[in-house]
């Protein structure tokens, strides 16, 4: 560890020595103190599902080969993995439910802070969900869409698949998944089912448990899909916007409010309210008023919809506080390190939690409810302004690093750009270029940082490698954060790193779409809940070609994965038919059955499969090989 670089992010490299000098601890310090980590856990062969345990299996065959109940390594690994998947599904679908319920309240007129910002999209969704919206009042459509979405959380008939799963995949895929018995009918029920079947003494056949995991992953997909689409309805569908990323976006002379977490429901309102309270901030002495910056996926949400700059991604969230310039860090759900409150104690920074079910000791809790969102947002901004007055400017260290980033490539925005090239058939230029090889394939980067690898390095290394090979790249979540901070979401990056034919295509589309140059090297598709945006594009391409997703030269990669949500996303990517790379050794290697299923057998069953490779250069090779294999399969 100590020999490995902690990060390639210059802002983090600037701040870490200062933190050390000041005796401030970060995730990297805690990671080092944690070494070595338990080998049994690493291999996934410890079971803590019942209180006869913990049981652990000796991977070398000398000690116990079965837990007290008799579960072997395969059962234990499969159960642990499936539980991780549904924990991810639960996190995403709670987010989705929250958005759907808000849309329902908007439809019923109970949530004054919210509007329907994209009526057309709402009507398109209603169409997709077979709700015949023509001629209906928009509020009525909102209600019907919300109820149809909520039905995906409540349907009791197993034979009817979730609306949002069935209507967003190719028919062939739906059929294949249904035959395997992994098509979800009800997100909540599937999560419950998997928790139940992995309870002590239940499903013990590793492969069957894994099929349960696949179903859980597809429930995750469903929750994510509706979450993104309904957020677009409420807050607007992202369009390309030029902004900036990295800690240099903090301003010395402004009240800096960092919005952190995942859910746009509150952060959007904070942005609205903050705009109106600029004067109060100035009165408090902040010459530049209020400066909102984003962290993690709340950051991605407001970045792509409002052009609010992104301060940093997951692993360096603590460094935002260490700059001494953040007056309030407002957090909602997911990927918030509990460490931030003890760090904040050393500064004037106020950490504000906003969700009843997500509190952190030491934080100020200002609870947020949809019906009174304005009030909560106002209170939060006031707390931030008040904290600003107590800021100790001697402790302020804003690293002078930021990069331009072009964000906001929703599926709709990509189609819009393509339609500037061919209005009648927008997908044609993309497909033509894939067929003629100008674009070799598409890679989607998703999720997370992990201190087990040098922060952002895997993302950047793989992307540069694939760019050379003319692969079109999309990114979400903290992966998108990595590219944004390190300058790969710029037109200059396209000039510098794209292979000739990719450069030509990105330039042609970029120029036609009014970018005055090429599209950025990596297209920012949103937060980690937004991975389904990429699926939308892929399914459109597949439908247009008349093939299923598992035939397309499309791959996915989570090279620095960490969260249970990432496990869920990776698994549904495999279920949808994509070769999916992970750059962190997953906690499954203690079972040959599970490892083989996910990396090999899944290929026959689903077309998709996992590629585990910790070396980014080799990973890029393998991803490109998978793309070439697919091209060969299509005869192109």
């Amino acid at each position, binding site marked *: 560890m100590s020999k490995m670089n902690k990060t390639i992010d210059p802002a983090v490299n600037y701040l870490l020595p200062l933190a050390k000098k000041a005796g401030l601890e970060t995730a990297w310090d805690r990671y080092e103190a944690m070494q070595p980590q338990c080998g*049994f856990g690493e291999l996934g062969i410890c079971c803590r599902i019942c209180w006869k345990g913990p049981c652990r299996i000796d*991977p070398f065959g000398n000690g116990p080969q079965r837990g007290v109940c008799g579960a072997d390594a395969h059962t234990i690994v499969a159960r642990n993995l499936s539980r991780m998947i549904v924990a991810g599904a639960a996190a995403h679908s709670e987010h989705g439910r929250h958005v759907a319920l808000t849309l329902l309240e908007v439809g019923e007129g109970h949530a004054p802070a919210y509007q329907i910002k994209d009526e057309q999209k709402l009507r398109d969704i209603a169409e997709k969900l077979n709700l015949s919206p023509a001629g209906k009042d928009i509020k009525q459509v909102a209600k019907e869409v919300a109820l149809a979405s909520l039905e995906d959380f409540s349907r009791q008939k197993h034979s009817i698949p979730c609306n949002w799963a069935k209507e967003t995949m190719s028919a062939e895929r739906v059929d294949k998944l249904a035959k395997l018995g992994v098509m979800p009918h009800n997100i909540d029920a599937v999560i419950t089912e998997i928790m139940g079947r992995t309870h002590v003494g239940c499903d013990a056949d590793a492969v069957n448990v894994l099929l349960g995991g696949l179903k859980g992953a597809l429930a995750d997909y469903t929750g994510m899909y509706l979450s993104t689409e309904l957020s677009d309805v409420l807050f607007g569908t992202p369009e390309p916007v030029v902004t900036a990323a990295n800690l240099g976006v903090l301003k010395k002379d402004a009240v800096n409010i960092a919005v952190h977490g995942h859910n746009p429901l509150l952060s959007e309102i904070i942005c609205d309210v903050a705009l109106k309270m600029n004067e109060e901030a100035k009165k408090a002495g902040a010459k530049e008023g209020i400066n909102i910056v984003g962290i993690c996926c709340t950051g991605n949400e407001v970045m792509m919809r409002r052009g609010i700059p992104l301060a940093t991604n997951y692993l360096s969230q603590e460094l935002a506080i260490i700059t001494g310039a953040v007056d309030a860090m407002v957090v909602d759900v997911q990927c918030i390190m509990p460490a931030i409150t003890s760090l904040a104690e050393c500064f004037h920074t106020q950490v504000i939690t906003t969700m009843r079910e997500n509190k952190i000791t030491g934080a100020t809790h200002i609870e947020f409810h949809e019906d009174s969102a304005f009030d909560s947002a106002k209170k939060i901004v006031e707390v931030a302004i008040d904290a600003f007055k107590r800021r100790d400017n001697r402790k302020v260290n804003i690293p002078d690093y930021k990069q331009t980033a072009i964000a906001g490539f929703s599926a709709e925005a990509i189609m819009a750009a393509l339609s500037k090239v061919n209005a009648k058939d927008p997908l044609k230029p993309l497909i033509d270029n894939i067929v003629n090889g100008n674009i070799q394939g598409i890679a989607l980067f998703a999720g997370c940082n992990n201190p087990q690898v040098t922060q952002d390095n895997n993302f950047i290394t793989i992307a540069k490698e694939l760019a050379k090979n003319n692969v079109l790249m999309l990114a979400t979540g903290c992966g998108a954060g990595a590219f944004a901070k390190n300058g790969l979401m710029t037109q200059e990056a396209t000039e510098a790193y794209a292979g000739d034919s990719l450069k030509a295509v990105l330039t042609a589309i970029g120029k036609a779409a009014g970018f005055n140059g090429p599209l950025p090297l990596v297209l920012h598709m949103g937060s980690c809940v937004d991975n389904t945006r990429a699926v939308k594009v892929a399914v459109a391409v597949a439908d247009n070609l008349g093939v299923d997703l598992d035939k397309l030269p499309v791959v996915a990669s989570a090279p620095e994965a960490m969260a249970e949500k990432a496990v869920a996303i990776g698994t549904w990517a495999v279920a949808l038919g994509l070769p999916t790379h992970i750059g962190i050794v997953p906690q499954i290697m203690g079972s040959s059955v599970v490892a083989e299923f996910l990396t090999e057998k899944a290929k026959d069953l689903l077309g998709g499969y996992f590629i585990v490779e910790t070396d980014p250069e080799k990973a890029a090779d393998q991803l490109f090989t998978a793309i070439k294999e697919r091209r060969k399969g299509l005869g192109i």
Partner: protein
Amino acid sequence: MVRVKENFFIYADPRKCLGCKNCELACAIAHADCDLQTAVTKGLQLQPRNLVVQVDDMVMPIQCRQCEDAPCALACPTGAIYQEDGFVKINEGNCIGCKVCTMVCPFGAISITKDINDNSNYRTKKAKARKCDLCFSRIQDNNEVSCACVEACPTKAIMLVDYESYRKKLIEERGKELVRAHTKTKV
């Protein structure tokens, strides 16, 4: 006369040991020349030289005590086990698996195990003696003894003890106690 330093040894504190067996894993890996994931995926047989044992409500790892007058070294008919530079070393290549060392070790610290990965053409069973060698094979150019198990223990229940400094500390502590007792009686 050349002064010979007494042997280092591994000291375990049963009050701190949680029985996670991380030390066993680390030892096995240290002696296998590959990482955990590879070993497991390739199905390699790994052999820890230590063993975490449970005695009543205490748990602790047992490994070679590096005896000064090592019974195993005295008994070994082939000289596979021998004393050198403050280590009780083992040359597994010379071991014929006769198990005499196992019988004479007062701590049960030696195990005789078969190496299923060894494909050489033996006429007999392939078992060899395995014992803690204080990770002698890992000693780098800087001459630092760095034991894999000690590094791996999450609760720092085990440590490598240099007998002489250990004894010095012990004497200092006892000395302090005596001094304190003395000053108290004076008052």
